[in-house]
């Protein structure tokens, strides 16, 4: 074990080189300033050393040009870092269009991953090489944080809403998966592995097990919980049609608008009274306690999969322009 003292983590995602380049850039800049100051301090300390203690230094009080110089130059230098780092950041937080979706829930002290096709795994995550993957997750108790150092991605899992990370694996292998937000006794045991596999191996792995796909499970739940009785696809039910709703903007009863995304759907299912859709009565019961986090995720996946129905009479559906 001694022979392998790693200095840099593996680069296993398309984001990793971006982050590392930025790192070296900042390292170079800060290294320059650190050396500059350190070398000057050492030189001055030796060159102007006075062993007697009863002499005084030259009567210099300051220099405005110098002051301006060493405020303005570091400012612009740090702005260069800022701009670059922000660009990288937006690459990290904004996933590309076509991603493989994986859902996850963190709870003390394990991560459960749910693949669309039905497999679920604990503290292990299998992903195919070369394909952008997005993991959407939440927490069932306290804060956690999903962290894969080899991919340079991390985000906190927050109870009550969804977070996500995305990455495109670029190297097959097994990588650490950590919980990076302190969550109690076995915080350091809330770890696992990410396996990056060749696409065909991944396909084989996928077909290896698993029950219903998430969409199918969602559809099942949609029937079982009675959602269908109100949410008819043609918009004639007591509740709004959910077909094609995902990704649009909804107008609420109080005149505000809201983006229909995962967190909003989750909220609509668990606390429906909170934000009423314009033109509807607060009839929808809460499903808190009747369906677990994974059930909610399946429902969401199902709702996402509903194709947009041809425009209906429901006056309240404000389809956003981009669709």
């Amino acid at each position, binding site marked *: 074990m001694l022979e392998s003292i790693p200095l840099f983590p593996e680069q296993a995602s398309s984001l990793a080189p971006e982050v590392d380049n930025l790192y070296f850039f900042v390292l170079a800049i800060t290294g320059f300033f650190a050396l500059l100051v350190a070398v000057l301090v050492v030189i001055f300390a030796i060159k102007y050393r006075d062993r007697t203690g009863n002499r005084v230094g030259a009567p210099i009080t300051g220099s405005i040009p110098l002051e301006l110089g060493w405020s303005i130059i570091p400012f612009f230098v740090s702005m260069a870092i800022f701009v670059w780092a922000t660009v990288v950041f937006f690459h990290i937080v904004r996933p590309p269009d076509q991603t493989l979706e994986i859902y996850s829930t963190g709870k003390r002290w394990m991560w459960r991953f749910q693949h669309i096709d039905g497999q679920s795994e604990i503290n292990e995550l299998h992903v195919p090489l070369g394909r952008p993957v997005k993991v959407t997750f939440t927490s069932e108790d306290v804060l956690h944080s999903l962290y894969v150092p080899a991919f340079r991605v991390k985000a906190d899992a927050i109870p009550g809403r969804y977070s996500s990370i995305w990455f495109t694996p670029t190297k097959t292998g097994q990588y650490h998966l950590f919980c990076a937000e302190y969550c109690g006794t076995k915080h350091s045991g809330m770890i696992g592995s990410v396996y990056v596999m060749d696409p065909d191996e991944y396909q084989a792995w996928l077909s290896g097990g698993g029950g219903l796909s998430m969409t199918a499970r969602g559809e099942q739940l949609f029937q079982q919980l009675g959602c269908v009785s109100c949410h008819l696809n043609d918009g004639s039910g007591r509740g709004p049609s959910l077909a094609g709703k995902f990704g649009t903007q909804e107008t609420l009863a109080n005149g*505000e608008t809201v983006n229909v995304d995962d967190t909003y759907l989750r909220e609509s299912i668990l606390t429906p009274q909170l934000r009423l859709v314009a033109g509807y009565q607060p009839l929808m019961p809460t499903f808190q306690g009747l369906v677990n986090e994974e059930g909610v995720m399946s429902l969401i996946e199902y709702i996402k999969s509903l194709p947009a129905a041809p425009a209906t009479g429901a006056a309240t559906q404000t389809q956003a322009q981009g669709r």
Partner: protein
Amino acid sequence: MAGHISPVRTYAMIFGTLMVLTVVTVAAAFTNLGIMNFPVAITIAIFKATLVILFFMHVKYSSRLTKLVCGGAFFFLGILFFLTMTDYLSRGWFVSPRGTAGAGTQVTVGPPPPPSAQPAAPAAEH
């Protein structure tokens, strides 16, 4: 060293104004002003507080330092409110393709965000 001595009349007038404003604020609350209800209530409260500060607390006659200290408190309170709200109010701006981006849903008041931030259509594959 006695500080500024205000005439009783001033105090009485301020007292009267404060009482009237209290009635006004209640009346305004019961009038439907749409989204203006909250701003109106807050404006009246700020005005009342200013009166108390300037006259009852004698800031009007105090040194610049006292004025500065007093203003400073509200300035930093403003920073707390303002910068925290930059987070909460801009969460809804960030819409990534296919939903969540780590910021969570937030309500946006007003017109929808520009088209560039619009979500793409759901992937057709599943």
